[in-house]
């Protein structure tokens, strides 16, 4: 007699649109220039990081300022796989996820003892410690950093196929491969988060966010959820880091553990777009990309503008741009509400 549904018209439309976009995205390298592919790679990897951070802070209440630790360790693990173990870079990427996962365990053990601002600063310190330790890793160049050897970058799995497929140069084939991987990653991460929110865990996350005490009183294990979210986020961040640095082919501790690039800009994207929604980071990353493309040639003026925009958005649209839009229109592209359908039920979303 009663049924549970999460379907809405906007949600279905989004699902179709996303499907079309993903298929189009897969086929894009056949038409698009390398510049477009590279811009998209940047957008997709930043979006992945932003979605992950949004999961942490927006849904899990874990405001981490130390995500660069996982980007960095993931990237370094990938380099280690290639340089020390001689793996193909593509196979070394999962190693990045694994390394980040392993690092996340002691990090969580430490940081979960801290609350709020203390948690934020604690994660930052851990990221610094990781950076300084990695900077002592002499075989991977220490503080100097290192580059992927040319025979590794020219031999990346699948590039031959891509070269044959699109008849492009080796470097372009590498871009396409990285772009595809980024596309897979962003779809997997966003889809995974969406699935998570629609699963039992999603209910638990919302419950914990709304009221920890009450959540515990209905049987939700708040601690375990925090652990799960933190570890998942770390592993996914590590994968993303490995992918980003496979594409860059050069690494140094300052680049891999850059708090500005991998955390501050990511926070900017999420918060400007609208935290606690899947739509927010998508909107945010587009805004960030447009700003960057339009202003980056103005040197310090660009960064100054970026800073001032962050301030202005927080003052005038504290829920971010998507918050502004959905408050006006009631639109939710990724519905997670479970509706009870049946007789005698009124009220919408």
């Amino acid at each position: 007699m009663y049924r549970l549904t999460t379907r809405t018209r906007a949600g279905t439309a989004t699902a179709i649109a996303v499907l079309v976009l993903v298929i189009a995205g897969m086929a894009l390298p056949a038409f698009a220039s390398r510049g477009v592919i590279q811009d998209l790679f940047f957008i997709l990897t930043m979006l992945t990081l932003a979605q992950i951070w949004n999961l942490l802070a927006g849904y899990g209440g874990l405001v981490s300022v130390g995500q660069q630790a996982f980007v960095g360790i993931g990237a370094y693990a990938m380099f280690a796989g290639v340089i020390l173990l001689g793996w193909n870079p593509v196979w070394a990427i999962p190693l990045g996820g694994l390394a980040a996962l392993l690092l996340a365990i002691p990090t969580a053990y430490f940081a979960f003892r801290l609350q709020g601002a203390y948690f934020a600063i604690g994660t930052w310190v851990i990221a610094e410690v990781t950076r300084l330790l990695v900077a002592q890793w002499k075989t991977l160049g220490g503080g100097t950093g290192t580059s992927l050897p040319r025979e590794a970058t020219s031999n990346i799995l699948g590039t031959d196929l891509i070269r044959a497929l699109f008849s492009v140069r080796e470097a372009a084939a590498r871009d396409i491969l990285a772009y595809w991987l980024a596309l897979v990653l962003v779809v997997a991460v966003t889809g995974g988060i969406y699935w998570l929110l629609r699963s039992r865990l999603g209910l638990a996350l919302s419950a914990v966010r709304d009221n920890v005490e009450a959540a515990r009183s209905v049987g939700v294990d708040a601690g375990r959820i925090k652990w799960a979210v933190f570890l998942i986020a770390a592993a996914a961040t590590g994968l993303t880091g490995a992918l980003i640095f496979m594409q860059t082919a050069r690494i140094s501790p300052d680049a891999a553990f850059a708090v500005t690039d991998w955390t501050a800009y990511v926070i900017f994207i999420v918060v400007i777009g609208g935290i606690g929604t899947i739509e927010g980071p998508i909107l945010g990353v587009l805004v960030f990309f447009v700003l960057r493309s339009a202003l980056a040639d103005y040197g310090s003026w660009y960064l100054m503008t970026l800073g001032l925009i962050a301030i202005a958005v927080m003052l005038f649209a504290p829920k971010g741009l998507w918050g502004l839009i959905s408050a006006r229109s009631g639109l939710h592209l990724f519905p997670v509400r479970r509706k009870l359908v049946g007789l005698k039920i009124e009220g919408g979303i």
Partner: protein
Amino acid sequence: MILRLENVSKSFGALKVTDAVTVSVPRGEALGIIGPNGAGKSTLFNLITGNVLANEGRIEFLGRDVTRAPAMERVRMGVGRSFQIPQPFEGLTVFENLLTAAAFGRGGREADMVDACARILEETELLKKANVVAGSLSLLDRKRLELARALATGPELLLLDEIAGGLTEGECKALVETIRAIHARGTTIIWIEHVLHALTSVVERLLVLDFGRVIGIGAPDEIMASKEVREIYLGLEV
């Protein structure tokens, strides 16, 4: 005995809120708790549910020592509770509130819980509002939701904290009927309430708490007849 408290004490700083409480509740009983504001009634609930841990004493549920067990473990064993000040998950709908409780309190797949949740919603007269965000509910509906959510965890022992306070006569009567029905299905109930007539029409025994101590326990008539209790509880000169 479904629940047994032995010499349970709890202090917040220097303030002793629960003072060597010993009480046993047989399976299937409906026990009422009364006492003045600040007597430690809600704290006693928190001790039973594990939201607060006892300083001393021992708490047994279904024959198992749960004195140190965390709240969520006790929920899964069958301790359901409502909060005196309603604590809905404000961002979730009424139905989702129940679904969360059902999925985690009983431990099952969401899809299997839909009918059970719908039944509870029906019973607590919330069905119409199933898809309304809990943050926008009126006080009455919040109280109903407290009860509904507690039921959704599938409790053997149901703890109700002042769910009739502030309700109109009609609403109160309906509530009493609901609780009776729940009790009739065999659920053990402990109910804290200031609205005495509602309480006494359901419970079999009454426990009086003052300054964290049990100052009387027995049949409602006897307890209500005691002048001491009337004075302490109502604060009115009789």
